[in-house]
């Protein structure tokens, strides 16, 4: 019973992280229409940044969050403006942009991964922050996981508030729903897309920092994060924040269940299993509406 409770709480924490990371991706793909395959590399890069800040400068990851997020926002803004805008300009249609962005970010993936390998090597890394056992619902987990979950909820909730209660947020949502009609109501597409891409980048970086407080990671792990975030986004329906949350939690729980009761080596298989089920049963996602 206690094992089950622990699994549940661990699964929820992991799922919350996946949801947060996927929310960033859904902003980039759903609004800026960039299928970013280098996405997971930015999770890992943020994790390394938090590690370096903590071990070298003694900066707590929570303060690190306040440093890394704005930096990631600027970096992703620059990436969009410098690298991706030319692709947007030359693409004759949405399909061509999708292919081009897949290729460009696939290249970027190897550059970022290469830089991290050169800086930090290929070994697994971790650091100890707030690893104090806490009891919750009869399960014992470390405090850092709870803190991470709390911050993920705050960041996700804050983003949701910005999207639903501000003018810019409404513009972002409008582009996600109907990119063809958005310019007709005076929305600056280039600016909105860059903003969404940058905001997505900041969210993913926050995910990386939070994950680094309780998971071991290495420079080659990005692909797995990208894969999981993509599956969550597709499961939840592209551009759908609530879908991300539900699908992320579902994936986190499934993985933790598989890892605890079957074999930790099969978590990616579990991800694929979920993905396949969705592809066959509901290709438009759990909350998606089939296109006309």
């Amino acid at each position: 019973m206690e094992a089950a409770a622990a699994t549940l709480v661990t699964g929820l924490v992991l799922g919350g992280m996946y949801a947060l990371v996927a929310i960033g991706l859904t902003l980039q793909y759903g609004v800026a229409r960039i299928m970013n395959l280098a996405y997971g590399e930015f999770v890992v890069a943020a994790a390394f940044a938090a590690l370096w800040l903590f071990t070298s400068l003694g900066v707590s990851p929570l303060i690190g969050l306040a440093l890394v997020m704005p930096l990631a926002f600027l970096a992703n803004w620059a990436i969009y403006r410098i690298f991706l805008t030319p692709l947007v300009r030359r693409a004759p249609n949405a399909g061509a942009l999708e292919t081009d962005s897949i290729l460009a970010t696939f290249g970027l993936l190897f550059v970022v991964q290469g830089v991290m390998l050169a800086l930090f090597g290929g070994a697994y890394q971790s650091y100890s922050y707030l690893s104090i056992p806490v009891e919750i619902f009869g399960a014992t987990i470390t405090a850092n996981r709870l803190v991470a979950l709390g911050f993920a909820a705050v960041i996700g909730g804050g983003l949701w508030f910005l999207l639903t209660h501000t003018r810019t947020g409404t513009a972002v949502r409008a582009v996600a729903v109907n990119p063809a009609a958005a310019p007709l109501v005076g929305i600056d597409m280039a600016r909105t897309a860059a903003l969404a891409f940058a905001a997505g980048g900041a969210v993913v970086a926050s995910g990386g920092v939070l994950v680094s407080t309780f998971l071991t990671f290495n420079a080659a792990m990005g692909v797995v994060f990208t894969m999981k975030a993509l599956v969550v986004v597709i499961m939840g329906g592209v551009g759908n924040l609530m879908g991300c949350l539900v699908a992320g939690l579902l994936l986190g729980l499934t993985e933790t269940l598989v890892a605890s009761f079957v074999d930790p080596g099969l978590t990616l298989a579990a991800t694929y299993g979920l993905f396949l089920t969705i592809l066959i049963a509901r290709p438009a996602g759990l909350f998606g509406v089939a296109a006309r």
Partner: protein
Amino acid sequence: MSNTALAIVLAGLAAMAALPFLDTGFWLALAISIAQYAVLATAWAMFSGPTRYVSLATAAFFGIGAYTVAVLGEVLPWPVVLLVAGVIGAVLSLLVGFATLRLSGVYFVVFTFGLAELIRQLVTWFEVNVTRSMGRYVFVEITQAQIYWQLLALFGALLALGTWLARSRLGFALHVIGEDETVARHVGIDTARAKVALFALSSVFMALVGAVMAPRWTYLDPAIAFNPSISFTVLIMALLGGTRSLLGPLLGVVPLALLFEVLTARFPNHFSILVGIVFLLVVYAVPQGVSGLLARLRRGAPA
């Protein structure tokens, strides 16, 4: 390609088969590397070129072929091992194809993106839990020259297949699908079946290359066999060469195989960064590939 052109190219391949009699060291190793990528990139372009579905799963099929040899190489006669590798590659590609190719291209990309990693984890799990042995020694009596000849033969077969395909209804169907999938369905093309069929053909060749290359390693484990950089290298070569014509990818394979040879030798620690940069240059500067550039120059349009 016309029959004459195909005959000339095949004769050229036959002439190149003499290489191992001249050198069995550096030049043969380089030729093996080029021949390997020539088959992989051409097979990749055969599916992804006309359909415009970007497959990131080359490493998965290559790895399956290589690992099949690691498991069965000592048990079965060599031709049977190759056959098994091809069959496993075909079965996997059919599974992936039927699950994803009915849907929009993005699902396919996402699915193939993590496929090599998935299979690597599954094979690792199987080895740890069932056979209880990680990693295997590959003891097969195959010389470097034999590897080279097999790759040349595969390349020849692939070019013949491609030439046939270009004139066949299946090839034309894929061309129509690449132009407009909705129209394709409304002229009676079973689009899912056509795409899956070609994906399977292309994947079988990738699995066979993996199997043929396996004896180059004396020791194989899942991490070596399912090395994701193969997907990446093949993709960039095919893109640089251009995917519109059968020999297009070759124009990317030769220069990049040479470049990578230099890069691995001189900058082993920064290989990934440099290759990534080369990749980005190709995507931004040569979107139609070298063969696309040449075609435009021939037509007299500004390139």
